[in-house]
């Protein structure tokens, strides 16, 4: 579509992403003046129908926000309700939650790396086509994904919408004998994960640099997954700062921008990024020695010496390193496992507001619930990672498109080429659009 010197590109359906979204790009006199991620995933109104539900229900209900990261929803929900009720889950039960979450990281990352992201680097439409030229790698990826799923299935009952998670812990804790066979499988997965880092670090990465503030949960002892304190590493260096989870919505504010119906998050008034790159930037030094070695050999530098990765295309390497770490963590927990005395602690309901945040595979996921004295939810708020990342994704989209426009100068790049690059810029962030369906843009701008 050409209007004088202005050209508008629309991609109606993004592919190889979770959920339904499109792109909108405007190029004027060789400058990309507008880049928008359009989310047209149908609204489902979770925050509305959570009101009036009993506080035991949000873990199962909010799991249905996303079939790819249900554990993230379940555990953010549990944490928030437990916080409202003044209960802390620790010890073996907390370790079991971390183990379950490792399973989700492994399967979700393995899916994204091999089935959604790798085809971009190797010029394929999908993993089936990729398997024709890279069968070994695709099979290895499927095997890794299966190992993650096996972990979630054992602890949760099934990999999509697990049934075994409840407030205070689990309905039933696994026995040592049940967990033991997993160890063998995880040891093989460790080799697969190592090979995956090697494989993806050999991809051809375009130059790109993001300059958002990085937001991830952090804890002093480990790479944060299932719990931690929101921590910000500002763009351009400077000391990291953190704030309590309870203050999350004071710092991360959703704002309605006049030219768009989408709500965008800002962190203390600035654009921010959450997800693999942010976690690696905030917590990289806390990775295991093996994962650190993989990161160095994968070209990510040494996070122990402050190296961060700010190239969104390289996020595939960071995810591969995180898979390796998650497999190691899972092995550590399985090897040291002693069944807890009880599968859950009691969470007696009381009136109050609680906050919870965990690191979903694609970034920080925040839940807040207010309960009445009977334990019924009177208010619910979910802030998914992709909603927070939208502004950053759009900025990366704009920059990527500008690079292609500049490269093709004085002509404009072909629509197919530009489309492919734009989709890549979005896929770098593993967006989960079903999750974001409460910040929908549903109007279509006419030109």
């Amino acid at each position, binding site marked *: 579509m050409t209007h004088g010197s202005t050209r508008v590109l629309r991609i109606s359906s993004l592919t*190889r992403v979770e959920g339904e979204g499109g792109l909108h790009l405007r190029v004027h006199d060789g400058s990309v003046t507008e880049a928008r991620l359009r989310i047209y995933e*149908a609204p489902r109104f979770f925050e*509305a129908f959570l009101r009036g539900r009993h506080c035991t229900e949000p873990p*199962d209900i909010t799991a249905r926000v996303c*079939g790819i990261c249900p554990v993230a929803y379940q555990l953010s929900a549990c944490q928030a309700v437990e916080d409202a009720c003044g209960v802390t889950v620790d010890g073996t039960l907390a370790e079991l939650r971390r183990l379950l979450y490792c399973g989700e990281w492994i399967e979700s990352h393995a*899916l994204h790396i091999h089935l959604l992201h790798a085809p971009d680097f190797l010029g394929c439409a999908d993993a089936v086509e990729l398997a024709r030229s890279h069968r070994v790698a695709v099979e290895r990826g499927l095997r890794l994904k299966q190992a993650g799923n096996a972990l979630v299935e054992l602890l949760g*009952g099934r990999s999509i919408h697990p049934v075994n998670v409840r407030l205070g812990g689990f*309905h039933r804790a696994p026995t040592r004998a049940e967990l033991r066979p997993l160890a063998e499988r995880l040891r093989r997965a460790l080799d697969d994960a190592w090979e995956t880092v090697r494989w993806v670090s050999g991809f051809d990465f375009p130059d790109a640099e993001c300059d958002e503030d990085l937001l991830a949960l952090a804890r002093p002892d480990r790479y944060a997954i299932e719990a931690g304190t929101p921590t910000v590493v500002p763009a351009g260096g400077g000391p990291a700062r953190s704030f309590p989870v309870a203050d999350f919505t004071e710092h991360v504010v959703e704002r309605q921008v006049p030219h768009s119906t989408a709500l965008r998050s800002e962190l203390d008034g600035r654009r921010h990024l959450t997800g693999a790159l942010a976690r690696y930037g905030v917590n990289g030094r806390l990775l295991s020695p093996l994962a650190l070695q993989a990161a160095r050999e994968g070209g990510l530098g040494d996070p122990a010496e402050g190296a961060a990765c700010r190239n969104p295309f390289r996020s595939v390497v960071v995810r591969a390193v995180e898979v390796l770490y998650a497999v190691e963590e899972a092995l550590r927990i399985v090897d040291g496992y002693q069944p807890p005395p009880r599968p859950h602690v009691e969470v007696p309901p009381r009136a109050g507001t609680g906050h919870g945040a965990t690191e979903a595979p694609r970034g920080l996921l925040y839940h807040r619930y207010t309960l009445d004295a009977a334990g019924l939810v009177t208010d619910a708020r979910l802030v998914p990672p992709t909603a927070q990342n939208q502004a950053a994704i759009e900025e990366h989209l704009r920059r990527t498109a500008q690079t292609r426009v500049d490269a093709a100068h004085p002509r404009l790049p072909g629509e197919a080429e530009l489309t492919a690059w734009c989709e890549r810029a979005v896929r770098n962030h593993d967006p989960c659009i*079903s999750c974001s369906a409460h910040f929908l843009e*549903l109007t279509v701008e006419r030109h």
Partner: protein
Amino acid sequence: MSTVSEALVPPARPRLAVWKLASCDGCQLTLLDCEDELLALADRVEIAHFFEASSADAPGPYDLSLVEGSVTTPDALALVRHIRAVSRRLVTIGACATAGGIQALRNFADVAEFRAAVYARPDYIDTLATSTPVSAHVPVDFELQGCPIDRVQLLEVITAHLAGRTPGIPDHSVCFECKRRGNVCVTVAHGTPCLGPVTHAGCGALCPSYHRGCYGCFGPSDSPNLRALVPLLRRDGMDREAVVRLLRTFNAYSPAFARASTALEEGEDASAPQPAPTARGDGPGPDEPEGAGP
């Protein structure tokens, strides 16, 4: 049946399409979770349209369309009609596509109020007042229940449709699977409320195996006897509101669950002693107070 001469010329592979409406993506993900079968399946069928997994998009017609998600927008309504028009067989996968999903809770509420509760500018949100199953709009060849669907059942449905036979998906209750698995009944032994007796089989009786009552994520089984089950749920400690909530989750709008939850909400208390048949009819009317008897 293929003949020898047909076998000499490889027939075109059947064409599969996977579609999404309002949903969480979990049911289409189930296809990608077939790690052992995925590449083999891709050899046998042409995966012609599957946006979550592929940038390739081959136009129809398709031999088999799998549809995830419910109809909640005017666009979705147009899309299901298009899908029907380009598909030889249309199979709905999951609770959203077969019963409207969790988002069908709006069907029991005021959608305008829902919209205002979530969005600062509700006027931007284009949505229908209801979330409905695909079968409410176009003929459907098979409905695979579950939130999410079961992987093995999905493979059975695909295989059966490719082979031209009826899928072998039993429509009895979870209780059958629970007995087969050798579980102790959580209701009988522990007094745990359980929807197993009225819920469609397919999960393998997961919840009772994890010491939890079934919460009905596979939707109603064939001829579910809610009238018998609700009093048991009440006996085991659930108040009326709790039973309504239990029935109003992922399959809330399935006719059997919707009927039972609405009757409870409107005041018919199935746990009350059943009145003897009277000249007026066979039970308390919906507008009589809880526990009212003749």
